[in-house]
């Protein structure tokens, strides 16, 4: 059936507006990253047009610089350790908050959520003051401790949102059929939570890897990647090297996130879930 002319016109206008909106958002979000990537191949230390010629040398310099290698290794190891810890801690917290009634539950929930709204700068300075006052020397461990403090609440929020939407009748049915707590968790709850936990793992990794404020203040003499970037930006000579390594890191991060996303979708499809992955990750927040 042909649509009436006015509805068809409205639809086209809507489509044009929607496309324009998406284009603007893409330019704002992706534009700076594309510029960063483009200038990482520019044969000049100054980030301005005209383009001086194509070169790979900033990539060569970046990946032969021991400071870059050290900072990337530190950030990767830190995030790789922090993210699964946060998933465990955040999931346990979410389970406790959504499934049990105990004294101080409201206070515990508020405490668990507080790092999500406290500025990271404040968390970083607070962490530094804490470690200094109790005489703990700053190191990657202190950075890691603070990363856990600010990252596990994110997992708690994501998993809580999922658990709130989760049909309790499934848990009750499992218990009625004689499932132990362990079986309930491993056979019923965790499979349902898997995509959310996967997404939480990705976000935790990214939060830890990309964190600057907390890493700067609570870090000692081993730099993380964002701290290295910030520290070397003072000299214009370093700009193209930062561009090159940042482009490479961004590409890897996008590839990892996209790969994980595809894997989670595949898991979701195999389970025959009717919900979209987005719904499972953040549906409860809406």
């Amino acid at each position, binding site marked *: 059936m042909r649509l009436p002319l006015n509805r068809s016109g409205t639809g086209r206008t809507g489509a044009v507006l929607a496309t324009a909106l998406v284009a603007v958002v893409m330019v704002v979000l992706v534009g700076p990253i594309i510029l960063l990537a483009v200038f990482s191949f520019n044969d000049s*230390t100054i980030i301005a047009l005209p383009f001086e010629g194509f070169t790979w040398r900033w990539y060569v310099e970046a990946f032969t610089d021991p400071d870059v290698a050290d900072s990337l290794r530190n950030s990767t190891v830190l995030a790789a350790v922090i993210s699964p810890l946060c998933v465990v801690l955040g999931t346990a917290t979410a389970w406790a908050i959504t499934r049990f009634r105990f004294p101080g539950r409201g206070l515990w929930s508020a405490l668990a959520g507080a790092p999500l709204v406290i500025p990271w700068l404040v968390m970083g*300075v607070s962490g*530094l003051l804490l470690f200094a006052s109790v005489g703990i020397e700053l190191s990657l461990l202190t950075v890691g401790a603070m990363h856990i403090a600010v990252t596990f609440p994110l997992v708690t929020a994501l998993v809580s949102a999922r658990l709130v939407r989760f049909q309790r009748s499934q848990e009750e049915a499992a218990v009625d059929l004689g499932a132990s707590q362990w079986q309930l968790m491993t056979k019923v709850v965790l499979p349902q939570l898997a995509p959310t936990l996967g997404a939480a793992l990705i976000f935790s990794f990214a939060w830890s890897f990309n964190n600057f404020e907390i890493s700067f203040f609570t870090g000692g003499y081993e730099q993380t990647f964002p701290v290295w970037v910030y*520290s070397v930006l003072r*000299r214009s000579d370093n700009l193209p090297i930062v561009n090159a390594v940042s482009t490479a890191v961004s590409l890897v991060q996008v590839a990892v996130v996209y790969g994980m996303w595809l894997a989670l979708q595949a898991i979701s499809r195999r389970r025959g879930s009717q919900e979209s992955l987005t719904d499972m990750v953040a549906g409860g927040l809406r």
Partner: protein
Amino acid sequence: MSQQPIARRYTQVIACASGALLVLTACGGGGDGENSATSGELRTFTYEDTIDPGIIEPFTSANADLDLKTAIFDSVDEGAAKLNAGFGTDVVEVCLDEAKPLTEDQLLAPIDTSKLTNWDALDPTFREAKGVVIDGEVTMVPASAGPHGILYATDAIPGGIDSYTALFDPAYRGMVALDGGWLTALADTAMASGITDPLAMTDEQIGEMKAKIQAAMADGQFRTIADGDSDMSNLFKSGEIILADGGRGTAEAINANGGNVTWVAPKEGTLSWMCGFGISADAVNVDAAYAFIDYYISPAAQGAVGDLGYVITNPNGLPEVAEEYQKTANPSDLEGTIPQFEPDNADVWRAAWQEIEAGG
């Protein structure tokens, strides 16, 4: 099934995990091995280029048993904030305008110059600069410096410029950048206004300079406030600006990358920054800290500092500087300049600058 014990057990697990993490963290600190001038551990907290391998490699090679741990910052202000919050180090990079507040906060130990074999060789311009010596005690050892004047695009202004007043000349409206430092911006404006001793400005004069900059900004005179050397380089290269106040090193960096700018020492006077090292009040390896600082002001290390385009503080290092940097590295270049020490009413300066940056 009772749910209460599970919650309690969960709480216990969290408490144990947190305790274990704290213990691990506490154990994660550096070792407390034997510290001496040539062994143990030495911690430095500096700008990134200060510990350039080209400068410090001979020191680390000669002291293979000394574990040099380096932490870096992007600005001395940030470094000071971290030190104030309790960050522990042995050697800290200090610039003249931060020496006083760090000393007042008791974060720096007095320097015993008798432990520095190269101290007497330093040019008096630096050794006796206001801020290096506070209340009769040496607070920092100057190791590098540079002049701050005006830079302009040579092709765009063929007639040249020799005065800070050009920054406010309507002929250059929209093509001028102000270097984003609270001290330099206000001091340059003061010199453009005929004040000969800008660092002694009264609160009222600072207010007038603030109003002058704000009026110029409202009038579109300034394209932007440049956030450091990198930003300034990009602004000149892109042609967005043709004139700015700034350091000679910035001009050299632009020209080294195909730019064409000229740096001049304005007729009203030239500011000069000086940076060097202080010893942290809670330094652990003091002997190694002195050894490091003494090395850094030695002729050999100063030669490498000069090769980075900075003015060196030990004239004996001049023969070690590469031919192309001989002129810019010469300590005598800064004679008669105005050292950028912290003014007595620095709070008023900073507040004024914050208002300017906030567009207020």
